[in-house]
Structures are given as structure tokens and as C-alpha cells.
């Protein structure tokens, strides 16, 4: 929309009706610079921590989460390590081939089974079952025990 002309200029005087105290504009620059100087003087001395508080905060946050992640990783690793290794069972079965007893295997499983992660347990259980099948050992009771939980 093209707004042509300014109708008000014909009707009203475009003058400034506002006045200021005498000498106001002469003193204003000094007043402003005094305010700036006051702000500089009263500004507290900025220490290293204050200057870099954001960076320090971010660093601590990253370190904290890294520590949590590492702890979680180590915990899982511990859990994995506490899994009864399949090799233990291979050795048992090999050494006790003649007197193989399912109940004994279950007993070993129960005694050696520590708190382990379900994922790790399942992985090892499958290895054990596969081995026992190769050895043509009846695995149903062993499976029941392994997959009980």
C-alpha cells in the first residue's frame, strides 16, 4: 500500500514540546562515563573458576557420564566374567565321561552359577547344550536347569 503524503503536517506543527533542564546534555556524557567506570570498579575480581565456569561444568558433566558409562561397562564385564565358562564343563564332562551324571552337572551349574547377566548366561548355556549334544548326552534335564530362569 502506497501511503502518499502526510496529512498531519498541514494541520499540526511538527515541533518538539519537550524540554530538558539547563545544561543537561552538557553533563550527560560525563554521567554516563561515570556509570560505566562505577560498573568496572564494583565488578568483582574474576577468578579462574568464574571465568571458566561453563567449561568446567561441561567437563565435569562429561567426566561424570564417562564414569557412569565405564562403571556400567565394568559391571557388565564382571557379570560376564562370573559366568561359568563352558570350558569348565567341557573339562568336567571329559574327566567324568564314564561316570557322567546329569544331576552332577546340574549341581555344578548351581554351585558355580553366580549372579550373571541373562544374555551371557543364555550364550554359555547354548554352548554347553551344543557340546553335550555332540557327546550324545541326554540334555533335557540340563536344558531345564539352564533355562530355568
Amino acid at each position: 500500500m502506497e501511503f502518499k503524503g502526510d496529512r498531519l503536517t498541514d494541520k499540526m506543527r511538527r515541533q518538539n514540546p519537550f524540554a530538558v533542564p539547563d545544561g543537561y546534555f552538557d553533563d550527560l556524557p560525563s554521567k554516563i562515563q561515570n556509570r560505566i567506570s562505577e560498573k568496572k570498579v564494583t565488578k568483582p575480581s574474576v577468578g579462574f573458576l568464574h571465568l571458566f565456569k561453563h567449561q568446567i561444568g561441561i567437563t565435569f558433566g562429561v567426566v561424570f557420564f564417562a564414569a557412569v558409562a565405564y562403571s556400567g561397562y565394568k559391571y557388565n564385564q564382571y557379570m560376564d566374567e562370573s559366568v561359568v565358562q563352558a570350558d569348565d564343563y567341557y573339562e568336567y564332562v571329559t574327566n567324568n565321561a564314564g561316570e557322567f551324571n546329569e544331576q552332577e552337572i546340574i549341581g555344578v551349574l548351581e554351585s558355580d552359577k553366580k549372579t550373571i547377566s541373562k544374555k551371557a548366561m543364555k550364550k554359555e548355556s547354548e554352548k554347553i547344550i551344543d557340546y553335550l549334544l555332540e557327546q550324545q548326552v541326554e540334555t533335557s534335564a540340563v536344558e531345564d536347569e539352564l533355562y530355568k530362569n
Partner: protein
Amino acid sequence: MVAYSDSELLSQFQKEETRNFAFRLIVQKYQEKIYMHIRKLVIDHEDTNDIVQNTFVRAWKGLDTFREDAQLYTWLYRIATNEALTFLKRKRTRFFLPLVDVEAQLATTLESDPYFNGDEADLKLQKAILSLPEKQRVVFNMKYYDELTYEEMSSILGTSVGALKASYHLAAKKIEKILESD
């Protein structure tokens, strides 16, 4: 007194040894325009004095990073406008809007203002301007009194030229209507 360009002043401001001198010159160059712009919005001289000083203190802090893609004057103008509008908003909030009409209060201040030199016609005009919505008042003052171009106003207010033209047109019509009705 030597008249420095804005570029020269900004260049001097960047140097530690001439910073204060350059800033003083910037204040001297623009203080009256900035003062009057704020005064027309907030009316009272003491309030205007505070806001003008706040404006230039903010300018001091921001001049280091001021990019010369905008003109220094429009940049100062923008700070001043924001400071004035923030002041009015706080005044309104303090008095629990909308129970208290801040503009009516400003009109009353105008009547008893020792630093108002206008006659009856001027008083009438100022009261009519005070009756406008805030943004329209800003636009009207910038166009009518400061004679800024719409492009400059657009740069200051962040509003499109078309919207500003419409705003001024509406403001002018409203003021005419008020004055003609009296």
C-alpha cells in the same frame, strides 16, 4: 569541533587509548536524538534520563562486537526503543495491568510536567499519541518527529516496511479523528 564519521568513531573506540574519547563523542553526537525518542515514549524527564543512560551503557558494552552492517544510529535507536518499551512493560506489570492504564497515567504526568513547553495544541496531540497502542506510538513518533524512512524503521523494529506503512497510516488516522472530535 571536528565532526567524525561513525566509522572513524568506531575505529577510535577499538583502540584502548582512545576508547573513552571516542565513546564520549558518540554520546555527544546522538544523545539528543536518543533522549527525545525515549522521552516521547515515557514522557517523564527523570525516567527518560535513566533509560538514556542505560541505553548508552549497553551501547558501551556492545560496541566491541558491533558489526557495521547496520548503521550506528539505527543500532542505538534499537537499544533505546527496547529499553523504553521494557520500562513501560515493567511499569504496567508493577501496577497490575490491566487495572491501571499506564498511558492515562503518562497523560496526567504530561499535564503537570515542568519540562513540557508545548501549548494546548501540543498537549492535545501528545495525549492523542499516548492513546495509540505502544508499537503504533513508536512508529508514529519515528516517522512524524524523527522523519526516519520506513527502511530505517524496519531495520530498527524488525518489522516489514508494508506493516510499518499500514501502522503509521492507522496511527495518523486515529490521531486526526481524536483531534477533530475535540
